[in-house]
Structures are given as C-alpha cells and as structure tokens.
C-alpha cells in the first residue's frame, strides 16, 4: 500500500518537486503498477542466482595510455551557468 507520504518521500529521494496534483496521481498509478508487479511473488526464487548483466564480463581493462580528452571549454559549453571555466551552482555550504 503506497501512501501520499511515501510518494513525497520517494520524490525527495529522487530530487523531484511534485505538485499536490502530481503527488495525488502518482499515489494511485504507483499503487496500480506495484500491484501488477506483485505477480512476481508467485514464483519461488529462493535458490535462483540474480542476473545483473547478460554478458559473462568481469573487470574489463584497457591500456593506460594518455590520449586527448574534452577541453575545459568544451566540457562547460552546455552549462546553464558557468564561471571562469567552472560549473556555477548556488551556495552549498552555509
């Protein structure tokens, strides 16, 4: 059972502000979707190993060679606000 309070809590974890109307709506739709997902509980998976990835890959390394990378100018080119080659954000520490 998902409550409005749960939705507000998840929204904050997700760093998304929601209007009251959005909160209301999401409470219902998330409840519906999670209700559907409940069907997984009909399976016994106690002895099954989880799959996070289909390829049998582990620790892929490449050679540690210097090569050109993005310039500082290119890296901040799309930033909504920048200052002297850095990303600009509001004050973080009081």
């Amino acid at each position, binding site marked *: 059972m998902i409550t409005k309070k749960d939705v507000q809590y998840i929204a904050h974890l997700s760093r998304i502000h929601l209007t009251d109307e959005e909160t209301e709506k999401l409470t219902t739709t*998330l409840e519906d979707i999670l209700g559907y997902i409940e069907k997984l509980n009909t399976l016994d998976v106690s002895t099954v190993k*989880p799959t996070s990835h289909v390829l049998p890959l582990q620790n*892929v390394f490449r050679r540690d060679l210097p090569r050109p990378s*993005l310039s500082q100018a290119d890296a901040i080119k799309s930033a909504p606000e920048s200052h002297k080659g850095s990303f600009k954000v509001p004050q973080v520490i009081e």
Partner: protein
Amino acid sequence: MKLNELTAHEILKGMSEKCINPADVYRSVREAIKTHDPKIHAYVHHEDDGIAFDEKKFGRFPIPIAIKDNICIKNYPTTCASHILQGFRPPYDATVIKKLREAGLIFLGHANMDEFAFGSSTESSYFGVTRNPWKLDCVPGGSSGGSAAAVAANEAIWALGSDTGGSIRQPASFCGVVGLKPTYGRVSRYGLIAFASSLDQIGPITKDIEDNALLLNLIAGHDEMDSTSADIPVPDFTHALTKDVKDLKIAIPKEYFVEGIDEEVKTSIFDAIELLKAKGAQFKEISMPHTAYAVATYYILATAEASSNLARFDGVQYGLRAQPSQQRRTPIIDLYEETRHQGFGAEAKRRIMLGTYSLSSGYYDAYYLKAQKVRTLIKQDFDEAFKSFDAIITPTAPTTAFKLGEKTSDPLSMYLSDIYTISVNLAGVPAISLPCGFAKNGLPIGLQIIGKPFDEEMLFRIGHAYEQATEWHKKRVSL
C-alpha cells in the same frame, strides 16, 4: 518509384551503374521531409545546421539517415525529446555516429521519441506526438517512433533507433518496416544517452532485410569506449542472405499466442510460418514458462537503472536550470528539485519514482533483487530453447498500431503493449521485426524472429528467405 522510396541497396546499385546520383536521392528525401513532416512529425531537429553534406565529397555510403534523438551528434541538438535537455549540443560524437561519418552517410536530423525512451507510442515526447504514416490518427509505436515513421514515410532511407524493451521492434512493426535489436554488446553504446544500461542497444531501422544487414555491418563492433561492447569478430552480415532455410529448426513459444493477441495478427504469423515450412524449415511448439513475468521484471529493473542514470540531469552541467520562486529547502536542493520538476514529463517522473522506490532501503530485496532473480529464469527459458532450436518466431506486438491517446491515461496498459519484446532484452539476445502482412484497417503487422546471442546472421537469413516469397516489404505509403 520515387528516389526516396528506394532501398539503400537499390541506390548503391544505381550508383555503381551510374544511373542514380546520390545528390538527387538526398534532395528527394529532403523534399519529402518538407512536404510530409508537418503532418507526420517524425523529426524533432532537422535543420541542416552543420550536419549537411558536401556533394563533392561523397563517401562509400551516401545514404540519408535519421538518428534517434538520444544518440549524440557533435554540436547538434540532442535532447532525448525532453525539456530537461533543452539546448544541449554534445561535445562529442557517439561511436555509431563516428562510424557512419567515416562510411559517408548523410545525417538528416534527430528523430522524435518518447521522452528518454520511456514509452511505447512516442506520445511522451516533449515536442509532441509522431503520427503513423499508414494511418494518421494512430501512434507509430515507440519509443523509436520517429525513426520508424521517418523510414516508413520515405523521409529517410535508413534510421537508427535504440531498444531497451522493444523500442526498435515495436515501432518497426507498427510502421511496416524492418527493425533489429542486436545482441547486447554487439553495437557500442558510447554516446547513447543511457536509459537502462544492462538492456539498451542501438540498432538499424530499414525498409528491408538486406538494408538492415548493410547498416548493421557499419555500426557493429568492439569499442574501447564501451566496456560492455563485446570483443568478438563481426561477420559480413550480407553473407547471411542465402535465401535458404531448409532444415532450420524454429520454435513457436505457446505463451506468445494466448489472451490479448489480435486474431488478424495471429493469422498473419501462422501464414508466415506455413510459408517458411514450405521452404523446408521445421517448426515445433515449445513452452517458455516465465514469459508472463517479463513485463513485471522489466519495469523493476529498467526503472531502477533509469532512476540512477537520470540522476545526472540536475541543472548543473547541461540543459534546463530552474529555481523555485520561494525557497523550500536549501538553494542547491531547490535547484535540483525544481529543474527536475519542470524538466521531466509525467512518464519520466513516474519511472524515476518507481525505480527509486524499488532501490530504496527496505524494498531492495522484495523488488530489485527479486526481479534480478526472475531475470535469470527468463534467460534460462531462452538458453533452454536454443539448445534445440536455431531461432524462435513470435508476433512483435499483440496488436497493430493503436489510436493516439488510447493508452496515455493507463500506463500499465501501455507497458503491456511490449509484452512480446521485453524478454529479449532481459535475455540479451538479438531479435528482428519484419512486415508480414496488413490488417483490414490498413495497418502493418510485424513478425519477430529471435536468435542466439551474436547470431544476427540467422535472423537475416530467415527474414530474407521470407521476403523472397512475399511483397510486404515493398509496399510504400502514399501520403
């Protein structure tokens, strides 16, 4: 036939015989965009804007191509059809774009999609819907709906899409074109804006199988920039077009033909099966018992990965930045929360929330870990089938294209339209959709062929043999 209605292999043949000039093909495609795109809306960014070509310097493949709006093109607007990426111009090319540039392809622009590829109808795009070229009041499918519609409307010869749970194959099916999701790891994901990193693959959308093999040839291969791209040899996929399916063993999973499937879709698939039987292929019904759990598993895993991947859109490095008019929390948290409030659409918010929920403390084991375990069972269904069979045949979607607006108010019914395509991504295997008929309402029907990991050749072989005996892939829309 008009130049923009041709396939790439026809254009390339015409070029070698000096009877087709690629500049004329390009002009014909541009003209189609100008005439038809105001009503189809396959493209979200299609101004020439620095990606036009130089007529004097044609490469080997001067084929005009549409690129899904989540694949980075250097200095060209790349927005995932989202408000939050407004104004973003990537500082680099995706690996597939780099490869296509080297081959001489001509980029037409970025094709519409569901926002961040979250959807099955292209209706969640910030830029508005794309219409199905075969029937304008229907959806083109999604999320690569713009890419599929562009090819179907002859507003592109080729297109690239991306497929996380069916996003290439389902729109290909709805638009009557050929769409391939390659094996996970076959094509580099470097420069593909990530949705669910363990499921995403870039793939070709074309008018027929031969073109699909040609385009896969150009984009496949290992890439140091994507550590999940597979370091295994890439064959010439056109060599698989042998026209021969004699003695191939093909499975028909009975779970794909139960409730919810249109009778017309079912009939078309069984007609295709009869045709392949007549050509010597052997069919047998099998059971893939975990099929019914795929959608639930997918919507936990894909949204969990998405919630993490989309954390980067915070109003700092690129795209939209917004600040609430009144302080709610601290200034920096307010910046994140308001930017994401304004920048993401309803479906993106829903998926980020669902993913965050299943990863949150107290729910991880019940949802995320459980879904990863069910993923193992779904994959085992495929492993088991491929011990005895060369391929699996199913419908691509249970229905033909649905009406615009029909499923937007009911997310769950939208999710269920991917019921036949999702397992393939969870198992990481390749699958292709090709046209196999038209319903009475005039809309195309798609046949899905699923293969073993890294055996795209088998899909092309069967698909090509089928095309030899049918005309569906030659039908062109009249707009």
